[in-house]
């Protein structure tokens, strides 16, 4: 069934391919890079594509292709770790907000509302600006920032589930709180959570690269796609392709994730289409 699902929709299949390639490169890491991404070459600054430097060089003469290949890893790491943090924290908050003692629920959801009332990038800006940059801190900050969105999704899904009679049946049988959460609620809210996870991965990539673009995320000399685009902004007239390569890679990756997310949503629950 799965294979026909893929073959009928070439867009989904190619998105899956893109994501797999990206993940593979992220895992493989620096092995694939033809040059050392940090190696400076004063003689070959801001060059266009050549046989030696396939995609050209940046303002320090470093090979763009190598920096692209190596730059995937921190982005993907941050995206995945932050999504995990957001998923676990958000789901817990969401379930608590819908199904727990009223006082706790009230405060949890007000906290979520307040955090949601503020744009993510500004929060990230502040946190990273005052704390420090780097994969770990970025993951934690972005993860915490995306908790409220997960919480919202988890809360509304939980509210729908607890209205069903089978949850009332559990109460009637004398089930304890933990059993209801683990057996009745969690398995039935997985679909919207999985969809939200794919959305969050895409959003985390965008947020991290946005911060790096501003110079606050992954800082030089470590390469990151967003950072490269930010630096390339200054050399648009000299080396236009410098901005194009990382842009295309980033856009393609996020697009692939979004397409997969849409397809996943359609597949898991036809009633949740395109929201």
């Amino acid at each position, binding site marked *: 069934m799965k294979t026909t699902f893929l073959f009928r929709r070439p867009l989904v299949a190619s998105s899956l391919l893109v994501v797999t390639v990206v993940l593979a490169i992220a895992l493989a890491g620096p092995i694939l890079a033809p040059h050392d991404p940090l190696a400076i070459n004063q003689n070959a600054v801001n060059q266009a594509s050549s046989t030696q430097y396939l995609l050209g060089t940046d303002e320090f003469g470093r090979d763009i292709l190598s920096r692209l290949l190596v730059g995937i890893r921190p982005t993907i790491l941050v995206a995945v770790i932050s999504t995990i943090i957001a998923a676990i924290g958000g789901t817990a908050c969401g379930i608590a907000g819908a199904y727990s003692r009223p006082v706790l629920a009230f405060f949890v959801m007000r906290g979520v509302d307040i955090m949601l009332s503020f744009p993510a990038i500004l929060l990230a800006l502040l946190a990273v600006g005052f704390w420090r940059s780097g994969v770990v801190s970025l993951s934690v900050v972005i993860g915490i920032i995306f908790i409220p969105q997960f919480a919202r999704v988890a809360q509304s899904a939980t509210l729908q589930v607890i209205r*069903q*009679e*089978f949850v*009332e*049946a*559990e*109460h*009637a*049988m*004398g*089930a*304890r709180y933990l*059993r209801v959460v683990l*057996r*009745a609620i969690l*398995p*039935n809210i997985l679909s919207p959570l999985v969809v939200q996870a794919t959305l969050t991965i895409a959003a985390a990539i965008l947020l991290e690269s946005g911060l790096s673009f501003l110079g606050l995320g992954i800082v030089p000399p470590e390469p990151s796609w967003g950072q490269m685009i930010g630096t390339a902004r200054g050399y648009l007239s000299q080396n236009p392709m410098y901005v194009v390569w990382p842009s295309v890679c980033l856009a393609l990756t996020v697009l692939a994730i979004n397409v997969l997310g849409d397809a996943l949503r359609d597949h898991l629950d036809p009633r949740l289409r395109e929201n």
Partner: protein
Amino acid sequence: MPGREILRIDNLSVAFKTGEGLRAAVNGVSLSLTSGEILGLVGESGSGKTILSLAAMSLLPRNAVVTSGRVDFAGANLLTARPDVLRKLRGKRISMIFQDPMASLDPVFSCGSQIIEAILLHERVNRRQAGERARDLLARVGISDPARCMRSYPHELSGGQCQRVMIAMAVACKPDVIIADEPTTALDVTVQKQVLGLLRSLNQEIGAAILLITHDLGVIYEVADRVAVIYRGDLMEEATTGNLFVSPRSAYTEALIASMPSVSAPKSRLPVIGRDDRGVISSVVEARSALKARPSSEPEGATLLNIRNLTKTFWTRESSLSAPQAFSAVDDVSLAIPARSTLGLVGESGCGKSTLSRLVMRLMEPDSGSIEFEGRDLVSLDRDRLRAARRDFALVFQNPYGSLNPRQTVTDLIAAPIDIHEKGRDREATVAKLLDAVGLPRDAMCRYPHEFSGGQRQRIVIARALALNPKLLICDEAVSALDVSVQAQVLNLLQDLQDEFDLTYLFISHDMSVVRHVSDTIAVMQKGKIVETGPAADVFDNPKAEYTRTLLSAVPKIGTAQLTALEAR
């Protein structure tokens, strides 16, 4: 009115588009509607009756398609007519009333503006005249304050009022045909009586023919001139109402009528619809599976459940400005159920019977009163002892689709009480025995709920309720969501289980005939109070309370007295 054929459905076939191709919903059905008559189209869920009516109006949903046939009305084939022709006919010559009245009205426009709009679509009048006509129509359909109704939004009206608004819109332009799809299913039985009466009087006044679609044979009996029976997309039979009930020609119709509780003696075994291997349908009275002899009709034993002066009040407010008002859901209720008997609790929606069941199950806290189970007061029990006490009573819910966790296997579902109270000891063996008791195959154990039908799911729910050998079973509208034939099977099962396991039932329902069939004693509930209690036969044959009499007279009945009146017509 002379009978000329006004709507003709000819060999109509409709199918659903699914992932695996077309699935037939209606197979070559032919019907003819004569002017001025009321034709009832009766069938169970999934029989195709709604899809048939939607196809006739060319209002099929995206995933359905007409595969053959024609629908002739006013000189045009409605299936192939041009959009502007169709538009002129719809609402003016042929109109439709749908099942869920509140969902069928636009929520962001007032009712008045919608009725006026409906009138202005087809009649050459100005807005003021349309408004007057709308008010007249509302008064005609029984709305007590037409001006207020005009100003109201759909969500501010009750279900019955919304349906009257829909009817007003449907008859606004004096159509020749009205198609009414389950117009009273979502309504209380007393409101249903009024709405059906309204349809009948409109039929006589305007002379509009009505195609009345329903699953309720009682409604057909009271209102329809002719009946067509549909089963799984096929037309089984077409006859006058009198002939249908006295001498049904098709085996399905016969079996369907026979499985209605109201035509069988109380507490007897209901015949069910059987299909043998060749697909031949017959009415079958299944053999009793229990080994125990049926005890005498006198309920013996001490009182198992004794409810005394139970009260529960909810606080609601009209708007955030007005003071909160007390709403007595359960008002000083006292009931006693002897062991191994069945108490039927009957009342309309909102009377508090569900709240009462939740109070007995201690899912809600009463404000005052006591609930004594086997002499112990449940209200004063602390949490742990209450949890232990839960083994002795269980609840069977109304909705077979919502009361089972879709992500658990049948074993997990039925063994849930065992897992909770006995840490899952011997679960497989117990589940197997329970499946046998409720008549489900053993291979159901590792399957998921969505693989079963409504009736089978309800059996799973019952099996779960029996897992810890409870003494009391509360059935809250347990068969209300089931088709008549499936309902018969489940009612038989409940009776067998009562004998086999020495169970006591508190059977809650709005359906009088079902309650009459299963109960030893009956309590009638209205607005939170018990208005009458007594042995079942007494309450039904000699009702003392005014409300009981109203309720009984509102129930559509199949009886010989009315039968002769129809035959005389």
